[in-house]
C-alpha cells in the first residue's frame, strides 16, 4: 500500500466526480448487479428490496444483509453503494467495515434517529445523502456528505417529485447567485444552512459536491429530463428491475443520460422497451407514506 492520505474530502468527493454523466442502479441480487454493469451502470446500490417493494410490504426497512452486500461486491468491478438508515451510525460503521464504496444515508429506509443525522466526517467511506431543497443539501454537506441526490419519491415511478426537488435546488442556487453579499446573511438564516457554504454556493453557482437526481425515474426520457434540469447523473431504483425488460431498459437509460440533449437518440433508445414499472401517482400517497419527508 502507498503512503498516501486516504479518506480526505477530496478523495471522497472525487469518486462522485467520476460517476458524473452516469446511472447508478438499485440491485437486489448479484445477477441483477451483473445485468446493471453489463448495461453500462457507473455504480450499483446493493439492497434487499427495491423501494417499490419496501413501500408495498411496509414494516421497518433496515440495512441489507452483509452476505448480500459482499456477494454483490464480489460480482462487479464498478463501485458498490449500500444504504444505512438516517442517523444509524452503527449501520454505517458496518458498511464501512464491509468496504462498500459509498454509503447512502437514506430516507428509503426507516429512520433510526428523528433528530440527528450521521456525523459523516468521522468516516473514511464517503456518503451520499438525499435533499429536497438547497438548505437540506447544505446541512448534509456540513455533516460531511460528499455527494447529494435530490430525493424525489422513491418506489413510485412518478418523476414529478424528482422534478420538483431538482428544480427547487437549482432555482435556490440561482437566487443566491443574484444576491449581494449583505443579503447572504439572511439567506443563510432562511435556508437554515451554514453561512460559509451559502457564500460558496453564491460564488460558484453550484453545490460544492456532485448533485445527482433520484426518486421516480423510470424511462430514458425521465433520465434525460433530469440531466437537462441540471443533474450531474441519475439514480434509478425500482424503475429498471420492476420493468418488463430490465436489460434493455437499463442500457437505454444509460444512453439517454449521456445523450440527454439529443431527442433523436432518446427516441431511438425508447423504442420497444416493454412495459415500464406500473408505478403509483405521488398524489395518491397518504402523507405518512411519503419517503421524501424523512430527513430534515
Amino acid at each position, binding site marked *: 500500500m502507498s503512503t498516501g492520505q*486516504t479518506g480526505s474530502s477530496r*478523495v471522497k468527493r472525487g469518486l462522485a466526480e467520476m460517476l*458524473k454523466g452516469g446511472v447508478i442502479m438499485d440491485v437486489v441480487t448479484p445477477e441483477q448487479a451483473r445485468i446493471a454493469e*453489463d448495461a*453500462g451502470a457507473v455504480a450499483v446500490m446493493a439492497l434487499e428490496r427495491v423501494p417499490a417493494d419496501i413501500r408495498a410490504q411496509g414494516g421497518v426497512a433496515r440495512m441489507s444483509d452483509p452476505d448480500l452486500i459482499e456477494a454483490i461486491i464480489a460480482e462487479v468491478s464498478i463501485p458498490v453503494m449500500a444504504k444505512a438508515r438516517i442517523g444509524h451510525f452503527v449501520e454505517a460503521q458496518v458498511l464501512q467495515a464491509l468496504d462498500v464504496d459509498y454509503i447512502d444515508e437514506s430516507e428509503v429506509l426507516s429512520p433510526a434517529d428523528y433528530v440527528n443525522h450521521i456525523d459523516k466526517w468521522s468516516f473514511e*467511506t464517503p456518503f451520499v445523502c438525499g435533499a429536497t431543497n438547497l438548505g437540506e443539501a447544505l446541512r448534509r454537506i456540513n455533516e460531511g456528505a460528499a455527494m447529494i441526490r435530490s430525493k424525489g419519491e422513491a418506489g413510485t415511478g412518478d418523476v414529478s417529485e424528482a422534478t420538483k426537488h431538482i428544480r427547487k435546488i437549482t432555482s435556490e442556487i440561482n437566487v443566491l447567485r443574484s444576491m449581494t453579499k449583505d443579503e447572504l446573511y439572511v439567506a443563510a438564516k432562511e435556508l437554515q444552512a451554514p453561512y460559509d457554504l451559502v457564500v460558496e454556493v453564491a460564488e460558484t453557482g453550484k453545490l460544492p459536491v456532485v448533485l445527482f437526481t433520484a426518486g421516480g425515474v423510470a424511462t430514458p426520457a425521465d433520465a434525460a429530463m433530469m440531466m437537462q434540469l441540471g443533474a450531474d447523473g441519475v439514480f434509478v431504483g425500482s424503475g429498471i428491475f420492476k420493468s418488463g425488460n430490465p436489460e434493455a431498459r437499463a442500457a437505454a437509460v444509460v444512453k439517454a443520460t449521456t445523450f440527454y440533449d439529443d431527442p433523436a437518440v432518446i427516441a431511438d433508445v425508447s423504442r420497444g422497451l416493454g412495459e415500464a414499472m406500473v408505478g403509483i401517482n405521488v398524489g395518491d400517497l397518504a402523507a405518512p407514506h411519503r419517503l421524501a419527508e424523512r430527513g430534515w
Partner: protein
Amino acid sequence: MTTLRSESLAAGEVAGEASGPRVGVLALQGDFREHARVLAQLGARVSLVRRPDELADVEGLVIPGGESTVMDKLARAYGLAEPLKAAIADGLPVYGTCAGLIMLADTVLDAIAGQESLGGLDVVVRRNAFGSQNQSFETDLGVPALGEPPVHAVFIRGPVVESVGADATALASLDDGRVVAVEQGNLVGTSFHPEMNGEYRFHEYFLGKVRARS
C-alpha cells in the same frame, strides 16, 4: 439545441482562446467538464466529443476519469471506437486520466467480460488496483519530466501500470515502485487526476505534444 442547463459548454460547443489548439474532451461519461476547464484556461479551444463527426477537426484529445466499462460500451455503440483507434494510430496526441489510461492501454487486467480498450500504449494496466474507495488516496509524486515541485496526485479507485512494454516509458512511480504515469509518442496516461486539484503541468505537457504536431 437549448437546454435548461446553466453550464456553458455543451457538446459541439467550443470554449477557450480563438487561436489555441483545437482539443477535444471525450464526453461520454466522467469528469470531462473539469478537463475542459483546465484546457480552456491553458488557452486551448476546447470541444466536447461524443460522436465521430465531433472528432473530425480536433488536434488532440483528452479521455477523462470515469468508468472505463461505460466509456467503452458507449464509444462502441455510437461509432467512436474505430475512428479513435485510427486517429491514435495516425499520431493524434491523447491524454488519458484513470479510466482514460485504461482506454489507452493495449492490455487491461480485471476488465469485465467483453470489455475492450482503444489501445496505443504498450502497457498492461490493472483496473481498481488499490482496492475499494476506502483505499483511494492522495499523495505527492515525483515526476522527473515535469520537474519540481512534485505533483500532488489524487487516486480514485485508480489503475496501475503493471508492466511497461518496450515502446512505452514510465513517467512516475509510487514509493513502492508501481508505475502510475506513462507516455509513448503522442500518448500520455496517468492513474491519477491532475484535473481535480489545479495541477496543470500534465495538461501543459500534453498540449506541448499537440502544438508540436500541428
